[in-house]
C-alpha cells in the first residue's frame, strides 16, 4: 500500500517537474532530419530548411548619451514621442560653459586692443608678432569654448525616429557614456535570429527566402536573408550566429522585441 502511494507521488512529481521545465524557454534548436512537414511554429531544421527563434528589431536604433558630466535642466521628450533629426532632446545646465565663453570673449577683446595699440604706435615687428600670436590664441580659446557649449550641452536626435526609453529626469546628473535616451526608427523593422546554431549557419546564405511566423500577430510573413554575422556569439553555452532577415512587406502592429519563428529555405 505504502509502495503504491510512493509511486503515485513520484509520478506526480515527475509530471509536475516536466510541466515546470516546459514553461521555461528552450533556446537550443534541435535538428531532426526525418521531419519533413514544414510547420513554421515548431522549431525543426531539415535538409531543405533551417529554423530558428528570432526577435523583431528596428533597422535603425541609437543609444544616446552625453560626452561630458553635467546636470540636466530639461528633458523635452517622453516615451513614444516622434522626433526629427536634429531635434533637441535633453539639455544640460550650461552656466559654467557660458561663463567660459564670456571669459574667452573678454580675452579676445584684450588681445585685440593690445594689437591695435601696438599698430598705432608703429612698434617694432617683434612685439607686434607676439601680440598677433596672443590674439590668435585668444580666438582659438573662444572657438573651443563655443564649440564645447554647442556640442556638449545638448543631446539631439541623430535621425528621424520614436523615443523608446527615457532614463533621465530634470535635475539628475549624467556622466559620459551613460545611456539616457534610446531612439529607434520604428517605421521599419527587421528580424534577427537569436539561436541559429553554428551547425546550421553554413547552409544559410544572403538572399535566401525565409518564412517568418510572428507569434503576437499569429501570422506568417515572407522575407529574405540580408546579413549573416561574421562573428559568433554564445547563448547558454551554444555557439550561435545572428542572421538578419528583411520582411518583404512591413506588417502593421509590430513592436520592438516581439518574438518570431523563422524558417530559412536553404535548398534552392
Amino acid at each position, binding site marked *: 500500500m505504502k509502495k503504491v*502511494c510512493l509511486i503515485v507521488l513520484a509520478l*506526480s512529481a515527475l509530471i509536475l517537474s516536466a510541466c515546470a521545465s516546459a514553461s521555461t524557454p528552450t533556446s537550443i534548436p534541435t535538428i531532426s532530419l526525418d521531419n519533413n512537414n514544414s510547420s513554421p511554429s515548431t522549431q525543426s531544421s531539415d535538409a531543405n530548411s533551417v529554423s530558428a527563434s528570432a526577435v523583431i528589431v528596428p533597422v535603425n536604433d541609437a543609444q544616446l548619451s552625453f560626452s561630458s558630466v*553635467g546636470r540636466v535642466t530639461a528633458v523635452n521628450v517622453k516615451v513614444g514621442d516622434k522626433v526629427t533629426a536634429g531635434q533637441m532632446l535633453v539639455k544640460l545646465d550650461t*552656466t559654467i560653459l557660458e561663463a567660459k565663453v564670456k571669459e574667452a570673449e573678454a580675452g579676445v577683446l*584684450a588681445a585685440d*586692443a593690445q594689437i591695435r595699440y601696438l599698430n598705432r604706435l608703429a612698434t617694432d615687428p617683434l612685439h607686434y608678432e607676439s601680440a598677433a600670436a596672443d590674439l590668435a590664441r585668444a580666438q582659438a580659446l573662444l572657438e573651443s569654448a563655443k564649440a564645447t557649449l554647442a556640442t556638449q550641452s545638448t543631446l539631439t536626435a541623430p535621425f528621424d525616429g520614436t523615443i523608446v526609453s527615457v532614463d533621465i529626469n530634470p535635475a*539628475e546628473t549624467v556622466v559620459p557614456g551613460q545611456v539616457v535616451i534610446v531612439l529607434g526608427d520604428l517605421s521599419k523593422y527587421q528580424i534577427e535570429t537569436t539561436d541559429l546554431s553554428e551547425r546550421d549557419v553554413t547552409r544559410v546564405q544572403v538572399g535566401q527566402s525565409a518564412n517568418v511566423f510572428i507569434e*503576437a500577430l499569429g501570422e506568417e510573413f515572407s522575407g529574405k536573408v540580408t546579413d549573416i554575422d561574421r562573428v559568433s556569439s554564445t547563448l547558454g553555452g551554444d555557439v550561435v550566429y545572428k542572421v538578419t532577415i528583411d520582411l518583404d512587406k512591413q506588417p502593421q502592429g509590430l513592436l520592438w*522585441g516581439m518574438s518570431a519563428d523563422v524558417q530559412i529555405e536553404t535548398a534552392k
Partner: protein
Amino acid sequence: MKSFYRSMLLSLTLLLALFVKPALAAQNGSVAASAVVVPAQITELGFMTSALVKEISVKEGDEVTAGQTLVLLNTPEAEYNVTAAEAALRSALGEEKVQSYRRIKDRRNGKVFFDVVPPEVRQIAHAHVEQAQASLEEAQAILAQSTLVAPHDATVAFVKVVPGEYVEQNQVIVTLATLHTLQLETTDLSERDITKVKIGSPVNISIEASNESITGKVIGISPRANTVGGDVVFKVTIAFDKQPENLLWGMTAEVTIEE
C-alpha cells in the same frame, strides 16, 4: 487504498490548476495582467563632484518644495576659489579705475601736456574686468554644484547617505517621488496580448492590499519589449480615474484591460 485516491486527486487538481491558470488570464476580448503601483515621477538626485557630505537637511518622508536645499557637500577648495575670484575682480576693477584717472606727462613744442591714457590701454583694463567677472561666475557655479536642491515639489523617498560620508560623482543620494500622483505599471503583459491594448482603453483594477476594485485608463505602452524569465512582455502604464486612499508605492494589483 484511501490514501492512494487522495494522492491521485491531489496530483490531478495540481495539474488542473497549472493548465487552467493561463487560460483564465485572457478571457473574451480583455487582457489581464499583474501590475505594480509606482509614482508618476521619480527623480534620482546626485552630485557631479566627489566629496564628503557636510549636511543633510531632509529625511525620508519629508515633503519638499522646489528650490529647497537637500544636501550640502564639504568643498573648501570651491569656496576658496570663489573668494579668490572675488578678489581678482576687485583688483581688475581698481586697475580699470586707475587707468581712467591716470594722466601721462608729455612735452610738445616746449609745453607740458597731461594726456589721458591711450584708449586701447583702457579697453584692455576693461576687458580684464569682464574676464574676472566671468571667472567669478564660473567659480560660483562650481561652488553651487556642492548644494543639492529640490527641482520640484515632491516627497523624499530615500536618503542614501549620512553626514561625513564620501559620495561619488553621479551616485544617487536622494530619491524624490511624487507620491500624491501614483500610477500602475504592468509586469507580465505578454506580446500575444499587447496588440489588443490601446492608449485610452478602460481598465478594471483590483488592488490586492485593500481588496478594492477601481477603474483607470491606459496612458502609455512601451514601444520596446522586456524579457521576464524568458517571456517577452511589454510595460503598459495605467492612470487611476480616481486615486484611492492609502495606496503605497510597490503595492500589487491585478488589471483587466478592456479592448
